């Protein structure tokens, strides 16, 4: 219970311990604490940013999907239009082709008719000549009347 030099010893050790604490214990702990505090704050900020970006991306995705749908509808409409066009074209072409074929057939038929007419005409002449010659065999000299006959043939 006596006051003695312990007082001085205690004061000196007190200063030594405070110095040690200030030098080697407190700063590294505070650095770690502050750094963690900063990390947590950064993490929270990043999470918030990520959430916003996600929202933005979702909205963007919705836009893209809507555009794609519109485009698809457009394409389908165009395709339908085009297909009906093609059918129409095919119809027209077929009709034209049919018409062309009919005209060609008609022309050929006309030609055949003309040819047959020519052949018939030649045969009629020779038959007429043969008939006439049989009738007139006796009376008409072939040589004398040849000129007349040829004239007749040319007339027919």
């Amino acid at each position, binding site marked *: 219970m006596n006051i*003695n030099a312990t007082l001085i*010893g*205690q004061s000196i050790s007190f200063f030594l311990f405070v110095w040690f604490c200030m030098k080697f214990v*407190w700063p590294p702990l505070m650095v770690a604490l502050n750094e963690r505090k900063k990390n947590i704050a950064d993490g929270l900020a990043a999470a918030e940013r990520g959430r916003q970006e996600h929202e933005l991306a979702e909205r963007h995705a919705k836009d893209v999907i809507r555009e794609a749908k519109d485009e698809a509808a457009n394409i389908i409409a165009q395709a339908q239009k085009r297909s009906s066009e093609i059918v129409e074209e095919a119809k027209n072409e077929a009709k034209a082709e049919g018409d062309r074929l009919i005209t060609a057939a008609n022309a050929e038929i006309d030609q055949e008719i003309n040819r047959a007419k020519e052949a018939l005409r030649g045969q009629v002449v020779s038959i007429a000549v043969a008939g006439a010659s049989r009738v007139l065999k006796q009376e008409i000299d072939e040589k004398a009347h040849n000129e007349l006959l040829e004239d007749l043939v040319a007339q027919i």
Partner: protein
Amino acid sequence: MAGEIHTSTDYIKHHLQNLTWGQHSDGTWGLAHTAQEAKEMGFWAFNLDTLGFSVVLAVIFFFLFHRVAKKATTGVPSGAQNFVEMIVDFINDSVRGSFSGKNDLVAPLALTIFAWIFLMNLMDLVPIDWIPGLAGMVGLPFLKVVPTTDPNATFGMAIAVFALVLYYSIKIKGVGGFVGELTLQPFGKWALPINLFLEGVTLISKPISLALRLFGNMYAGEMIFILIAIMYGSGLMMGSFAGILQLGWAIFHILIITLQAFIFMTLTIVYLDMAHQEHH
């Protein structure tokens, strides 16, 4: 020594005597074997138990905290680091709450005071005869386990704090400012002696109240433990009753030792804050 104890009075006196090392009246240096011898050694003597226990406790504290501080990670803290960070955070909050200036010394100072005083007070919870009993077997005449029940320890710390208060008062306000603060208020310069007396008392009361508050609380607590321990010697009934009392007092004492460490720390912060303020 255990053999010398006959009465309760002897037992109490024995427990309140520090292990003192100093110069005997015949000129030789050595341990005091009686309270009388210790008294005759005068000022230039050392209480080896107070110094020893306080230094050992501080070394244990710094060993633990320094080890954690060296490996402190900014990631998820492990068990020990978690514990240390909890304390450091608590101290840091206290300092920020009561200290408005900017000084890198105050927070480590507060941590040292809190942890050191807490550990010294904690020795009070060790049953009072264990360590002195062991020391008696080794041959030491006295041993007082709780350094804060020695006024030398509490005054030593309070004087150190007081020195810091004076140092920062003069450093921040200058010698003139500090002297002015002591002499020119509260009544103006015409009442200079009264001012000096009032402010002087205020100033001096700071370290004295710091030291005596801690010493008084711990001394009283220690005394109650000693009185409870005396009851162990008086029969089975009283002995078991004393056991219950000791348990109850120890549990209550946990509150006191923490509170006293906290009060010492907070008042130190407040005094240093006042030293840093130019005008009140």
